[in-house]
């Protein structure tokens, strides 16, 4: 009898509420993974060190969860007190027991058949707050689920999916709000970033990333082009609770490759925007790629670090941009402090002293095609970088590939693709990739680990002195965070298009990654 009681107690998954205070201090509970990027600063760093450079050779699969959906698995799992929340295509959520890998509940909702989406009906993860789990959908809805049952608490329309709006990014929960970005940059939508009341689903604020005619910034759009200016917000940003500022990257202007109809800088496309978290009001913006004609969205992860820049302590935001430059900005003012390429690029000759690129002659798309680096897929892309406070290095999965960009006609019709051209790979140049470790203040390369193909997977650094990454050919691997030396790998059998994370299960460290159509969880051999 005693044994039975003991077993029952062990089997109990005790879930406390995920308060804002817990999210704010996510670093203090490394056994959980409470936000998309691990903490509000978006470090994608785990303070766990049970798995380390000494014992990594004993890392083995603990369990594998096969997803139902056959679209790309881009999810970053969240873990809250013994429950893992993963998403799968189109916008489903599954809650798994972290000990056994068995499902506790699932929320499955078929997408309408006429959903428009450029790049797969994907979902990158959920947000949690209090007793709710939040998921955006490919038909541009935001849904709150009961964290214990998966039942719908509320379900609101963010935008009309028939005009190409969609949600693929994980929302960001802060204070009493859910901030959610949207996609649709290939459909001539007008971009925005939204916040909703977490309890009711009522819209709290909206920041339009393309100003309406007459507003500041609207002078950067010719004619009526702002109406289809895109500048979407399809990857999760970061948050500084002390400054109460949300940092979010924005996407390409529309149409992608033909800038003729939208002369001007096209604000706030390809920007980092800093918004007051309570009101959604713009504090500052920094535009990485004014008048982008290469489809190089700035929808990457803004990494917040307090550091000493040129002997002065500063609150910084570090940003490895799809345009192949690495940036250091002051996150209080948006001031450009430093920029340097971390991957091959030919579209700009340099950045001026305010960080504005000087466009390279002959790099603009033409009707017959122009070779340019990086490929529109970028020097990196949406998948996450990592910052380790232990090594004080910034890690990025870099892509080395060029493309041939074409300018074409683009006629806007609601719901139709609005690209104004296209791109091809350069024949005979398959490209390659690397995990690169950058000195965060200078962007200087400390080490690199070469990859056969340009990657589509992000990185996780850990207090165990490791950097985890994945590649197109299915290997999940671990490198020495200090030297880049390869220490361990596992062939998952499927392309890795996601980000790793880490947590504790029964007091034992686990590392998880979505690969192929499955979630793989690894632990030390016992």
């Amino acid at each position, binding site marked *: 009898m005693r044994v039975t009681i003991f077993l029952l107690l062990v089997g109990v998954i005790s879930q406390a509420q995920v308060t804002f205070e817990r999210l704010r201090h996510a670093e203090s509970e490394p056994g959980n993974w409470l936000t998309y990027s691990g903490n509000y600063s978006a470090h994608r760093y785990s303070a766990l060190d049970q798995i380390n450079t000494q014992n990594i050779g004993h890392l083995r699969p603990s369990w594998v969860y096969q997803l139902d959906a*056959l679209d790309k698995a881009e999810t970053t799992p969240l873990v809250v007190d013994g429950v893992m929340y993963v998403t799968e295509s189109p916008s489903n959520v599954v809650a798994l027991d972290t000990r056994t890998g068995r499902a506790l509940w699932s929320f499955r909702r078929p997408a*309408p*058949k*006429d959903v*428009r*989406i*450029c*790049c*797969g009906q994907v979902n990158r993860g959920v947000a949690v707050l209090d007793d709710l789990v939040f998921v955006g959908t490919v038909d541009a809805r935001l849904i709150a689920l009961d964290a214990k049952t998966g039942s719908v608490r509320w379900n609101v329309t963010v935008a009309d999916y*028939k005009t190409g709006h969609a949600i693929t990014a994980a929302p960001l929960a802060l204070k009493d709000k859910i901030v959610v970005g949207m996609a649709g940059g*290939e459909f001539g939508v007008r971009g925005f970033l939204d916040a909703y009341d977490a309890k009711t689903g009522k819209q709290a604020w909206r920041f339009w990333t393309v100003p309406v005619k007459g507003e500041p910034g609207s002078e950067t759009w010719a004619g009526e082009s702002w109406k289809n200016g895109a500048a979407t917000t399809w990857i999760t940003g970061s948050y500084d609770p002390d400054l109460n500022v949300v940092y979010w990257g924005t996407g390409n202007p529309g149409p*992608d490759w033909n800038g003729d109809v939208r002369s001007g800088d096209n604000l706030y496309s390809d920007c980092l925007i800093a918004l007051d978290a309570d009101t959604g009001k713009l504090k500052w913006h920094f535009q990485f790629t004014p008048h982008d004609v290469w489809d190089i969205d700035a929808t990457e992860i803004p990494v917040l670090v307090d550091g000493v820049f040129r002997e002065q302590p500063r609150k910084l935001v570090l940003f490895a941009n799809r345009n192949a430059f690495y940036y250091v900005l002051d996150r209080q003012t948006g001031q450009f402090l430093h920029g340097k390429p971390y991957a091959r690029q030919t579209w700009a000759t340099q950045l001026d002293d305010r960080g504005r690129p000087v466009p390279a002659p002959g790099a603009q798309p033409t009707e017959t*095609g122009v070779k340019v680096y990086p490929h529109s897929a970028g020097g990196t892309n949406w998948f996450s970088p990592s910052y380790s406070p232990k090594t004080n290095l910034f890690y990025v999965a870099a892509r080395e590939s060029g493309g041939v960009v*074409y300018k*074409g*006609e*683009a*006629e806007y*019709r609601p*719901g*139709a*693709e*609005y*690209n*104004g*051209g*296209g*791109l*091809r*790979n350069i*024949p*005979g140049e398959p490209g390659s990739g690397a995990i690169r470790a950058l000195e965060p203040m200078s962007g200087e390369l400390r080490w690199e680990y*070469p*990859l*056969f*193909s340009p990657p589509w997977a992000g990185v996780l650094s850990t207090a165990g002195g490791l950097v985890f990454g994945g*590649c*197109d*050919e*299915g*290997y999940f691997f671990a490198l020495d965070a200090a030297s880049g030396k390869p220490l361990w*790998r596992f062939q998952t059998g499927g392309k890795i298009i996601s980000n790793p994370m880490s947590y504790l299960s029964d007091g034992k460290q686990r590392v998880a990654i979505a690969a192929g159509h499955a979630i793989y969880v690894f632990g030390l051999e016992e």
Partner: protein
Amino acid sequence: MSLCGLLAVQLLLMWQVELPTEVAKQNPYTSVADVQHGKRLFAANCAVCHGPDGSGGRGANLARPKLQRAPDDHALFMVIRQGVPGTEMPPAWLVLNEHEIWQLATYVRSLGRVAQEHVPGDARAGGKLFESAGCTGCHQLGSAGGRLGPPLTDIGSRRGAAYLRTKLSEPASSLPEEFLQVQIVTRDGKRITGIRLNEDTYSIQLRDLSDQLLSFWKDELVSIEKQPGRTPMPSYRDRFSEGQLDDVVAYLVSLRGAL
């Protein structure tokens, strides 16, 4: 979901699967103006995935006479209209009307049309030369022949005579994107030349010139030399006379077997 909502969804689903009252078996819009308009629609809607000239990218290569999913006009119309479920190919009916879809189909067909060229040689004589010169050692016709080179069963429907003639004289003049000759040296000193089948950061797989399938971890190898622009196929410029080259080309052009 309310009953109203449920009905609305059902109606929507019905609408989506409902086909136009009658889809023509043959494309009714094939004029030069239709091709031109189709080209513009292609640039706006399809080029991002299929490439500006339809030669493929994220989407399939459409610049070929036979499209796997669209053997006839009706099938091509339906693929464009309905998309390909389970892939990133979206349904065009959302944004294009029937007329526009046909125009797009006209342009897509034009991408893969190999002009009927005058071929001077004697195909029958070319066939004999093809056999006697040992071409089947590397190329399959139907189920017979070697596997080192590409199968040629339907080469005549995919390539023009001029292209084939150049290929016979200068085999390396145009190689498929994925084709790569490699030479590896193993730790025990073996030097092996072959065609790469697969590769990743840690391993490489190849077919050697004697048709063996080989796989190595890269740390088992001393070197991997990639030889882009090289092929095991010899030039036939000096092996065949001009007339014989014409004959072999005529033979190849006549090969239009099933895909």
